[in-house]
């Protein structure tokens, strides 16, 4: 009973935040809407027992990334005079067509409820024990095991990527035109 209730409340909050991101004229409101969506999605992760990912979502996304966004919005200045004229011909029409197509596709897929491909069957392991159909619990220990065994190469690659990104950001920030 708790899960459907939480799902409905958090889904509405996430959708409201997402709509705010798109329609708000002031980028600050967009950032606040995105923050609400990120928090709601984090709660949805907790409902699905992804505790560690939910914590990372709040710390990294809602904490670090949103701070960076707000900082840059303040730095660049809030420009409310965004023109609503469309320069690309037929763009609005194609946007509408795309929206209708995606809504029909996703709605049909959701309503038909044909998700048999994701129903887990109890699996027999080599030792003969049956793995039950209980959902996996995403604690730090549970995540760390595949992370540092199967995915260790990807883990090191992301470490390298983060270093490169930090160096690149500093290089871009130091960029100056000659003579300025």
């Amino acid at each position: 009973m708790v899960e459907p209730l939480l799902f409905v409340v958090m889904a509405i909050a996430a959708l409201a935040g997402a709509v705010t991101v798109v329609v708000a004229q002031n980028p600050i409101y967009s950032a606040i809407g995105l923050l609400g969506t990120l928090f709601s999605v984090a709660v949805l992760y907790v409902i699905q027992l992804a505790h560690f990912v939910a914590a990372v979502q709040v710390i990294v996304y809602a904490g670090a990334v949103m701070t960076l966004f707000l900082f840059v919005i303040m730095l660049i200045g809030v420009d409310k005079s965004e023109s609503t004229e469309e320069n690309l011909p037929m763009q609005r029409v194609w946007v509408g067509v795309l929206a209708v197509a995606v809504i029909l596709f996703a709605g049909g897929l959701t309503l038909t409820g044909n998700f048999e491909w994701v129903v887990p069957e109890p699996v027999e392991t080599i030792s003969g024990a049956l793995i039950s159909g209980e959902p996996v619990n995403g604690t730090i220990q549970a995540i760390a095991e595949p992370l540092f065994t199967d995915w260790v190469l990807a883990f090191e690659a992301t470490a390298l990527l983060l270093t490169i990104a930090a160096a690149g950001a500093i290089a871009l920030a130091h960029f100056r035109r000659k003579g300025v």
Partner: protein
Amino acid sequence: MVPDGWYMGLAAALFLIGALGILLRRNALVMFMCVELMLNAVNLTLISAGRALNDLDGQVAVFFILVVAAAEVVVGLAIMVAIFRRRSTASVDELSDLRG
């Protein structure tokens, strides 16, 4: 228990809103936020599918996506600040030098 299809439907809706934002808005910062919205929608599908399949790899994949998205935000915002310093605008309509 909420059916997995509901999570997939919510993720599809979030992704659609993000895509519409990219197509309709001009402010580069808002477009960037819409990219984050779409990334989050995909993360939600990965978590739901991971739970439904009883597999932790979905959550590991989301962890990696979070890291890559953080790196992307850092570089993207640095580029945006650098462009703003030169051109004093954050509107993508005025940054059309590469248009054929």
